[in-house]
């Protein structure tokens, strides 16, 4: 069964933070129960700890190990855009990707103001430039100099 945590991840940053939180939890588990309680209470985001406590209540170590394996299969889409995205937009973008591409996919957003608009994508070794700069360049390619 797939963890609810993965479906809530939106960006690669979210994925990296989750990976860090799992490292902390795993280390704490090997130290003491008190350390584990301290970490899950103070160092883990509340919505993450709630899901972990719910999904891993029977075998926490096994659950974390399985979750780590699942994280490795999460597809990452690199996307360059020309503006700082709002939280709402990231949510909207992630929703579109999970509905249309893969329910586990996360996006690695990069800022590139030179693109003028649109998006430049890199996914599973492929690259696609759908930026305005590319479209304008294509228009300019049809402009011919005339002897004045």
């Amino acid at each position: 069964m797939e963890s609810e945590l993965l479906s809530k991840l939106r960006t690669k940053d979210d994925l990296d933070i989750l990976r860090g939180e799992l490292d902390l939890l795993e280390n704490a588990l090997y130290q003491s129960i008190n350390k584990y309680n301290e970490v899950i209470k103070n160092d883990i985001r509340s919505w993450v700890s709630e899901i972990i406590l719910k999904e891993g209540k029977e075998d926490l170590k096994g659950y974390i190990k399985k979750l780590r394996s699942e994280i490795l299969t999460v597809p990452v889409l690199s996307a360059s855009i020309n503006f700082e995205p709002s939280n709402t937009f990231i949510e909207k973008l992630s929703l579109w990707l999970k509905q249309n591409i893969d329910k586990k996919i996360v996006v690695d957003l990069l800022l590139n103001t030179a693109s003028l608009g649109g998006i430049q994508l890199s996914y599973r070794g492929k690259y696609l430039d759908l930026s305005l700069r590319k479209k304008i360049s294509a228009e300019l390619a049809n402009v011919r100099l005339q002897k004045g």
Partner: protein
Amino acid sequence: MGNELLYVLIGLISALGLLLVVFVMLFIKSQKSVSSLRSDLDLLKKDKVDLEKGAYEPVNTQARAIIDTANKKASEIIASVQGLSEQEKNILANSFQQMLAANLRDYQSVASKFSQTYEGFVANIGRDVKERLDMGLNKVIADAQTEMKRSTLSVNAAIQNLYKGYEVEVSEYKKGILSQIDKLGVDIIKQVSLKVLGKSLSKKEQEELVIKSLEEAKKLGFFE
């Protein structure tokens, strides 16, 4: 009476003999004159051949020297012009070569005129023709030299005019290109940008454009 008649006949025969001697002497003299004339004619023919060789050669040599010098000078000028590409220099050099070809045609015209004048002199051969021929040839050669000098001046003027004209043309062409580049840098990019964008995009529109681009990528099969 008989003796008197005999003396008259003897006198008459003597007179005829003298007359015959005179005729023979005159014939011999005329023969010498014809022989002398023939010899003069042969000498003049030989002079004609020599003059043809000797008179044409200096004109040819001088013409070629002038043209070669002009060609070399023009090549140096063309090669030393700054700011011209090899292609532009080639165009300029080719233009000069065409002009040189036209000048050579002028030279041939002068040479033809020279030849006609020369033949006219030779046709009037006489005892004093050699002196006249020398005088005439000198005059024709002088005329030909004048013509060649005039042609050289004409070549120089034409080179200068061609270069000035070309310089102006290149300058105007560069101005035109710069003008076009300026337009590309401002107007065309602006127009095309507006054409593509329709209007300047707000952040909301930028966000919508990103989603539309993702839909386009999906249609293109990018995520498969």
